[in-house]
C-alpha cells in the first residue's frame, strides 16, 4: 500500500483577507495550473432561484472592472492556455492551465473577477448568458434520451428544502425570472476572498505564488457574514422506496437504482467508492458479469454504478442498466435490484476487492498525472476539509476498505426501503 496519494510538496498560506493559497511545485513541464474553488454551489440557492449559481459561473467570463466582455477567454487562449469552470451542488471552480510565463496574467484575471465583477455586469450580458444556459439545458438534458434522469433522481433522493433537492442546471422558469440585482447580490455575498481557495500547481515556486497572490488579491475585502447553505446532513428515512416511471421517447427501457450513502470524505464514503467499483465498474464488475454477460438482459456498454462525490450530505450511489432488445423493464429492474441486494448477502471476494482497488489506484494516478488534475484535487481538500494535504489520504483509505465493511454498508444503507427506482419506458409507437 502506498503511504501517500500525493507525493509532491504542498505549501499553504492565508492572506489577511482570508484567501487561502495552496502551491505545489513541479518543474516537469513548463506549465502551471491555476484553480479557484469558491465554496458556493446550487445547495446555496433558495427556492425560486434554482440554476443561479451556474448561470453566475457563466457571467464570470463576461468581463470585470479591468477586463472587457469576452476578453478573459481571449487573453487566456492568446497565452496558449486552456480554461473552464464548473458548478455542482457543492461548489463552483474556475481553472486555467497556461504556459508558466503567463502565471501572473492568470492571477490578475482571477483577482479582477473576484473583486470587480459587479460594476461590469450588465443586463445585456445577463440576458445573453441566460439564453446560452437555456440552450445548455436543452442540449444536455431535454434533447437527448434519458437526459433528464439526474433531474428526476435528485428530488426522489432528497426531500423538498434539502440543499440537493434540485439540480444545478435549474428550472427554465427560475432562469427566466433571474434579475440583475439578484446576481449583483450573489457576487457580493459569495465571491469573497475568505470564501475561496486559490491553488497553483506546476512550474513555479511557493514564494512566487504567495507574492503574486498578495499583490493581486491582497487588496480585496473579506466579507464577514457569508450565509451557510441549509444543513442537509440528516435525511430522514421515509421507510418506503421512492419509485418513478417515465414514458418517453427513448430507444429501450432503462432503470436507475439509487441510494443515499455518506458524505464524500468520510470513511463511510470510502467504503461506498470501493463498493460502487465492485458493483459496476468494468467488465469484471458484478453488474456486468451478472446482467450483461450472465443473464444477458442488459446492454454491455450501458451497465454500471458510481458514487457522486458530494460532501455536504449523504452522497448518492447510482446503479443503472439498459435492457437488451426483448427484455422487459420489470425483468431488468428485478435483476438490477437483486445484484444490489446481494452486496449484503454474498461476500465480496478477495479477487473482487483487489480488482476494484487496482482500478481505483489507476484512476487516482490518472487524476494526479496532470498539473490541472492535481490543482483541482488540492483545491477540493482545502475547501471541503480545511487542509489540502488530506488529499494524500484518499487512496490509502480506499485501499484499506474491507469486504466486511462493504457488506455492512450494503445491509445498513442499500435496503429496499431506502431505495430510489427510476424507470424509463419507450413510448408505444
Amino acid at each position, binding site marked *: 500500500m502506498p503511504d501517500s496519494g500525493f507525493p509532491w510538496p504542498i505549501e499553504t498560506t492565508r492572506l489577511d483577507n482570508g484567501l487561502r493559497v495552496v502551491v505545489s511545485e513541479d518543474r516537469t513541464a513548463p506549465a502551471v495550473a491555476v484553480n479557484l474553488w469558491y465554496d458556493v454551489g446550487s445547495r446555496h440557492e433558495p427556492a425560486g432561484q434554482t440554476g443561479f449559481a451556474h448561470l453566475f459561473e457563466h457571467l464570470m467570463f463576461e468581463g470585470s472592472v479591468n477586463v472587457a466582455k469576452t476578453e478573459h477567454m481571449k487573453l487566456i487562449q492568446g497565452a496558449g492556455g486552456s480554461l473552464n469552470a464548473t458548478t455542482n451542488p457543492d461548489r463552483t471552480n474556475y481553472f486555467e492551465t497556461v504556459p508558466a510565463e503567463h502565471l501572473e496574467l492568470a492571477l490578475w484575471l482571477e483577482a479582477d473577477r473576484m473583486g470587480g465583477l459587479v460594476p461590469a455586469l450588465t443586463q445585456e450580458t445577463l440576458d445573453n448568458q441566460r439564453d446560452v444556459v437555456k440552450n445548455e439545458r436543452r*442540449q444536455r438534458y431535454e434533447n437527448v434520451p434519458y437526459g433528464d434522469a439526474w433531474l428526476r433522481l435528485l428530488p426522489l433522493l432528497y426531500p423538498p428544502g434539502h440543499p440537493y433537492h434540485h439540480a444545478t442546471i435549474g428550472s427554465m422558469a427560475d432562469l427566466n425570472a433571474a434579475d440583475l440585482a439578484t446576481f449583483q447580490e450573489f457576487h457580493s455575498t459569495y465571491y469573497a476572498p475568505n470564501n475561496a481557495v486559490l491553488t497553483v500547481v506546476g512550474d513555479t515556486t511557493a514564494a512566487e505564488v504567495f507574492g503574486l497572490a498578495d499583490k493581486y488579491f491582497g487588496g480585496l475585502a473579506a466579507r464577514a457574514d457569508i450565509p451557510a447553505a441549509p444543513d442537509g446532513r440528516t435525511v430522514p428515512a421515509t421507510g418506503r422506496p421512492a419509485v418513478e416511471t417515465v414514458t418517453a421517447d427513448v430507444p429501450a427501457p432503462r432503470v436507475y437504482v439509487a441510494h443515499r450513502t455518506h458524505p464524500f470524505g468520510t470513511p463511510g464514503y470510502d467504503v461506498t467508492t470501493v463498493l460502487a467499483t465492485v458493483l459496476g465498474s468494468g467488465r469484471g464488475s458484478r453488474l456486468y458479469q451478472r446482467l450483461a454477460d450472465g443473464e444477458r438482459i442488459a446492454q454491455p456498454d450501458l451497465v454500471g454504478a458510481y458514487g457522486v462525490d458530494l460532501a455536504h450530505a449523504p452522497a448518492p450511489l447510482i446503479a443503472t442498466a439498459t435492457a437488451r432488445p426483448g427484455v422487459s423493464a420489470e425483468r431488468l429492474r428485478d435483476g438490477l435490484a437483486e445484484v444490489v441486494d446481494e452486496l449484503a448477502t454474498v461476500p465480496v471476494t478477495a479477487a473482487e476487492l483487489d480488482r476494484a482497488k487496482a482500478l481505483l489506484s489507476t484512476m487516482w494516478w490518472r487524476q494526479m498525472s496532470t498539473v490541472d488534475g492535481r490543482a483541482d484535487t488540492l483545491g477540493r481538500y482545502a475547501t471541503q476539509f480545511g487542509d489540502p494535504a488530506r488529499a494524500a489520504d484518499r487512496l490509502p483509505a480506499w485501499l484499506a476498505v474491507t469486504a466486511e465493511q462493504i457488506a455492512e454498508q450494503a445491509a445498513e444503507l442499500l435496503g429496499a426501503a431506502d431505495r430510489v427506482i427510476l424507470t424509463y419506458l419507450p413510448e408505444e409507437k
Partner: protein
Amino acid sequence: MSLIATRPGPGAARAYRFPQVVRRTAAGGQVVAAHLPGQNLAVALLLLDGGAGREPVGKEGLGAVLAKALEEGTAQRDATAYALAIEALGTELSTGLDWDSFQVSVQVPVDRLTAAVELLAEAVRTPRLDPADVRRVRDDEATALRMDWANPGPRADAVLRAELFGAQHRWGRPLYGDPDSVAALEVDDVTVFHSEWFIRPGTLIVAGDLDRIDLDALAATAFAGAGGGPVERGGPIDVPLTGQRRIILVDRPGSVQSTLRLGHPSPHRAHPDHVPMTLAGTVLGGAFTSRLNHLIREVRGYTYGIRGDFASSRRFGRFAVSSGVQTAVTAPALVESVGEISRTQLTGVTEDELEVARSWRAGQLSVELQSPRAIAAALTTLVVHDLPDDYHARLREQLLAATVEDVSAAAATYLHPESLTMVIEGDAAVIRDELVASGLGEVLDHT
C-alpha cells in the same frame, strides 16, 4: 476594494520541450517511446494498420465489432477470466479506431506494465472469436448504435459524410458504421479482418518512465507470433466540391434544438498548407474566442456552443461546422454562420485574431501534452503520418511564424461557402418554411 488595473505582461518564456523520443526495431516490430521521468503511470498502445479505411464497402463497423470481440476470451482463458485478469492490474483494454489506424492500449502504474502488455497481446493476437460470441457482440454493437443514433447528431453526421464523399466509398460512410451495416456483418467478416490486419506486428507506442520500463521485453511480448509486412496505404483522394449550396433536412419531430452540420471537402493531412489552414479554422471556429462562437453564442445567444474546423486523415479531409441551436432560431443561426464563413473566405483574418490563434495552438503543445495518455496519442501522430521526433517543436515554430497573409490565403483557398452542404436535423414541420425562405440553397428532405 483595490484591484490592480494594469494587466501584467508575460514572464521569461520557458523553453519548449517534447519528451525524449526513443525509436527502435525489436522482436520484428517497431517501438516508439517517450521518456517521462518520475511518472508513476504508464501507457502502452499497439498501433495497427487496421483502421476504418481498411474495411470493405458494405462492411462498416467491422473494426468496432472486432474491438469488442477481442475481449470475449482468448486462446488461454474465457471472457470472465480475461476481464478479471486485466482489471486486477488496474486497467481495462482500451480500443479505438480512426480512418488510418486501429489502437489497443493499457494504462497502469508503471510496475504493472509488462503484465498488462502480456494481456493486451493475448487479446490482439490470439482472441478466441467463437462464432456464437462474435454474433452476440455484433448484435450488441448494432443495438448500441441504435441507442446512439437516437441522440441528435449521428444521423446528421452520416448524411453530411455521404454528401461530401459519396456513399459508394467507404470514406463516405460513418466511421463506426450504422446500425444496419453492423447488424449485417458475418462471423467470417470478423475473423478474416482479424487475420488480415491484427497479426501484422504494427508499432508499439510506450509513454512512461523508461528507466523503469524494459522496451525490448515489451516488444518481444507485443510482437510474439506476429508476421507479415506493411501494406500499401494508398495516396490522397481527390474529392470534388459540389459547387452548389444545399440544405438537407433530417426530421426529428419534437426536437427542442436543431442540430447543424455544415461542411465541404478539404485537403488531406500531409498537405503543405496544413498549418495555415488549421489556423484559419481556429480563427473561424476552432476556439471559444472564434468568430462563430462569438457571434452565435456570445452575441446572439442562439446556442450553448458552435465550432468549426478542418480535420484530416492520410487520404482525405473536410471542413465542418457543428452546433445545436434552439429550434426557433434555426434559420437565423444558419444564415449568420454561413455569413461568417463567407466573410472569412473573402476578407481573411486580422492580426489580432491570428495572434490569439497561433499562441493558443502553440501553447496547447505544452499545456495539453502532460499525461501519459496524451503523450502516447502524440506519438501515434508521429507514426501514422511519418513525422520526425522533433515534429512538435517544429510545429510550434511554424504556428508562431504564420503570417496574416499565409492564413488569409489559406482561408481564401480552402473555405468554400458556395459549396457547403448544410444538414439540419430538427423538427422539419416547424423549421422547413423558414429554411426555404432563407434563400441559402435548395432544401431537400432526407428520406
